[in-house]
């Protein structure tokens, strides 16, 4: 049995990761997760990551070994969809109390496993380790091993306590658990040359089912989806697949690569977001399957489906293109799937004013540069304050992001669309792309925004009041003020002599010519000659008389 530290080290040493490949030996040892910043960190822990990655397995009981915070605060919060069992939505936790922490929680865990088997009899139980039992030394590997033997049922330890690292690390640790304990432990009922695995696809909002009809049509069978709408038996027998597609490249690359190593299942990284990516992924799948011995006509059939679907999707999106003319979008996704969505949005005619690349790999970034041009506004890390300013200054017409930055956009009265895991719409494949465009249009064209951006009545009134208090209005009301203002008008700009001074001089000395005015005042009489003549001409007779 490897220690957890060794497993983590092993994950960081991922040859399939391009970013890892260019690092020095020392850097690689440090791992790929940035040191978490206390006081300015966001995002989940390793336990969160492990649970997110495995929870979509629908017929498995997911038991969280820890205090109430780990499960009580977080259960039933993901929109993955199931075509069968709903057991995954039932929450199980040992809810450790102080006594358990003093005396150890292993007995409680063992009892909990028995209770679950008595009540639900699931095909397997996944036991998630959390920080506190890890600290007090509860050995979940040993408990799970003992329980598996005693109850003759797979009880799988998912050793990914929160404090070992980030959510992403947790995804990978979950993958390791699958590799160590699940994959390859059962045999499928039958196999076909068209069997594939989808790795890192979570079927959020049932989006997998936007693509599955096309695969069905081509005769491609999803032997196992890890883990969206997945079943234990399927993943346990997934080692018999002919090819694999790595859907969310960051989360489970270790699973795809190690399955290639152990079982010779070739894989490629792809996505079903956007028209081009969907087509490319279908093509790759067909190619890999044919290389592994599937009949070659699959290629031709795939091209036919792609051509039909692309034509359909382009026709469906076409009407929106003029509506999106000149509209600018800001894309903040944490960066995982940025490039595929960038391509999708451009297809619909939106102009991208910026995209985040925080979690993107170097390859992802290159693709974004390729798509958006070299001078694209690529955001490494954006603070909410900057985001708010960007939207307030109307640098973008719509923001697409995950739930966490939702209110930054909405509070700036800006259209916003959820494209992260909590979203309620499915955006995969060709139909999903059309759906995304529809949603963007719905949001952009809503008459609500204009109303919301109007000033409140008191603000409008305050503005009117301010106008009434403007200098012009004040002068109009007060003759003395009007006189002062009139006299303050500059006549000689060169030597700054105002009308009042000149008038006083004319008045005091009865001046009649420009030269005389020049003598008595500081006026230059050059460029202001005309103006002084004007004053002399218009001099009120009363004044002249008084002067005489």
């Amino acid at each position, binding site marked *: 049995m490897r220690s957890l530290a060794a497993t983590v080290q092993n994950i960081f040493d991922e040859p399939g990761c391009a970013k890892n490949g260019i690092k020095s030996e020392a850097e690689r040892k440090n791992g790929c997760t940035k040191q978490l910043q206390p006081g300015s960190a966001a995002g989940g822990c390793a336990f969160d990551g492990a649970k997110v990655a495995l929870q979509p397995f629908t017929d498995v009981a997911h038991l969280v070994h820890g205090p109430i915070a780990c499960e009580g605060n977080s259960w039933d919060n993901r929109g993955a969809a199931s075509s069968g069992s709903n057991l995954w939505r039932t929450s199980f936790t040992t809810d450790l109390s102080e006594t358990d922490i003093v005396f150890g929680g292993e007995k*409680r865990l063992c009892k909990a496993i028995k209770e679950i088997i008595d009540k639900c009899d699931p095909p397997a139980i996944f036991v998630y380790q959390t920080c506190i039992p890890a600290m007090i030394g509860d050995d979940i590997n040993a408990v799970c091993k003992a329980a598996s033997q005693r109850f003759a049922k797979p009880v799988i330890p998912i050793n990914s306590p929160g*404090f070992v690292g980030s959510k992403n690390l947790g995804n990978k640790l979950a993958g390791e658990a699958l590799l160590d304990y699940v994959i390859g432990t059962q045999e499928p009922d039958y196999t076909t040359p068209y069997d594939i695995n989808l790795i890192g696809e979570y079927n959020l909002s049932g989006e997998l089912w936007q693509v599955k009809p096309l695969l069905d049509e081509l005769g491609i069978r999803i032997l196992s989806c890890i883990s969206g709408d997945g079943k234990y038996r399927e993943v346990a027998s997934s080692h018999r697949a002919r090819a694999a597609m790595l859907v969310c490249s960051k989360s489970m690359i270790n699973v795809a690569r190690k399955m290639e190593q152990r079982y010779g299942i070739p894989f490629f990284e792809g996505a079903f977001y956007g028209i081009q990516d969907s087509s490319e992924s279908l093509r790759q799948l067909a190619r890999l399957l044919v290389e592994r011995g599937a009949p070659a006509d699959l290629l031709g059939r795939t091209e036919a489906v792609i051509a039909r679907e692309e034509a359909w999707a382009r026709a469906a999106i076409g009407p929106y293109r003029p509506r999106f003319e000149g509209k600018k979008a800001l894309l903040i996704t944490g960066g995982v799937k940025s490039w595929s969505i960038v391509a999708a949005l451009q297809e619909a005619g939106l102009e991208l004013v910026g995209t985040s690349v925080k979690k993107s790999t170097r390859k992802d970034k290159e693709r974004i540069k390729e798509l958006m041009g070299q001078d694209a506004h690529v955001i490494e890390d954006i603070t909410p304050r900057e985001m708010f300013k960007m939207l307030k200054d109307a640098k973008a017409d719509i923001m697409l992001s995950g739930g966490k930055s939702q209110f930054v956009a909405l509070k700036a009265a800006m259209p916003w669309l959820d494209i992260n895991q909590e979203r309620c719409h499915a955006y995969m494949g060709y139909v999903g792309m059309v759906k995304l465009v529809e949603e963007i249009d719905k949001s952009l064209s809503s008459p609500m925004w204009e109303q919301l951006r109007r000033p409140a009545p008191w603000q409008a009134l305050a503005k009117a009041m301010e106008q009434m208090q403007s200098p012009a209005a004040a002068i109009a009301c007060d003759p003395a003020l009007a006189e002062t203002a009139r006299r303050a008008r500059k006549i000689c700009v060169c030597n700054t002599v105002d009308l009042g001074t000149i008038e006083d001089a004319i008045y005091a000395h009865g001046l009649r010519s420009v030269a005389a005015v020049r003598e008595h005042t500081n006026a230059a009489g050059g460029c202001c000659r005309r103006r002084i003549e004007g004053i002399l001409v218009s001099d009120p007779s009363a004044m002249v008389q008084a002067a005489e």
Partner: protein
Amino acid sequence: MAIVTAPTKACAVNPLKMSQPIGGAFAFMGLRGAMPLLHGSQGCTSFGLTLFVRHFKEAVPLQTTAMSEVATVLGGYENLEQAILNIYNRTKPKIIGICSTGVTETNGDDVDAYLKLIRSKHPQLAKLPLVYVSTPDFKGAFQDGWGKAVARIVEVLVERPGANGLRDPLKVNVLPGCHLTPGDIDELRVILEDFGLCPSFLPDVAGSLDGHIPDEFTPTTIGGIGVDEIAGMGRAGWTIAIGAQMQRAAEVMQVKTGVPFRVFERLCGLCPNDEFMTFLSEISGRPIPLKYRRQRGQLADAMLDAHFHIGGRKVAIGAEPDLLFDMSGMLHDMGAQVTAAVTTTQSEVIERIKTKEVLIGDLEDLEGLAKTHHCDLLITHSHGRQAAARLKLPFYRTGFPMFDRLGAGHQLSVGYRGTRNLIFEIANLVIAHREENDQPTPDRWRTAAGLPRCSGYRSSAGAAGRSIA
């Protein structure tokens, strides 16, 4: 007297409970310019944050000391220091509220000592209030964390009145329990102001989480009670605590400042509000305003109209102790039977709940009880949705979290008006459910020979059906 039963299961299924630290953090969210900070690994914060965001549909400030495995072994001093400095530099908060978690409680971080050390090392923090409250995950529940945090805030931030400290009899401190929504707090504010009183709410989540749109982006809370206002609470004439969970905070206030207090365990229902209004009239020396005399009449009328539907219902409620006590009391007063009651943590009110037995348990227990006792109305937070669907029961969502419906922050239950609206909502739910699921059929009352005439569910539904006919 209800019997209180503790759980015997090793495995909690579908938890009702949420953890103490986020209850504590929630209390700090009712302070202006605050940044709540959980001293634990970053998941502790992330889960809590997601939960609050989904409940309020608002941006929520909540930070973490991001304890790693190594930091947990070596002690969390450096993480806490860095977190405070980072927050101080980046978000310029008016106050940082620190809650411990299971991780840091288990390794025994002495946060009070850490804070002293941090203050002595960083003089720039001299004026920044740092309030620490100990809230281990493995003890208590959400409402305990809230209660503890408020008591700590009073202890640390309220100033003792000076020797010549004058009391302002019109100034009233209100310490609301965590079961009150921002809407409830605004309602209470209006009521108190109508009596000419000047209330200070601690915490005031209505100021921060009521869903208003700020002019500027603020990384801390966008409203709530200010630190200065808290400091001056010692000059108030009275303290009103709402919910038994606030008793301790009110006591701390009294010991520190001498302000007398009164606890209102319930503010939902006719009698509790009569008491409340009488009290306000006494302390303000003003008659009860006409507005509330009218509202009382409206509530009485609502009760008359709704008792046909709510009366006789067998209700299953799962909620934190104070909310459970309040809701079940109101429904009991309307003639409903509280048949299944599940709560999260110990409290002195639970044995006074008008039911046979209160279980400290989870939603599986509630579902099981509701099924065996043929309950026909389910009341709990949003996590009860699966149970409600399986049992095919009308389901009223209350408490925290409520993530699958909008307007959680504005659900009202206090005051005559709040109770009236709540009664209408529950009655309408029952009516709609009956219309959809329980239309009479020719065979409705036919029994197979030899079978007992009625099951529990049928008789109660039938009785309600007849009385409106």
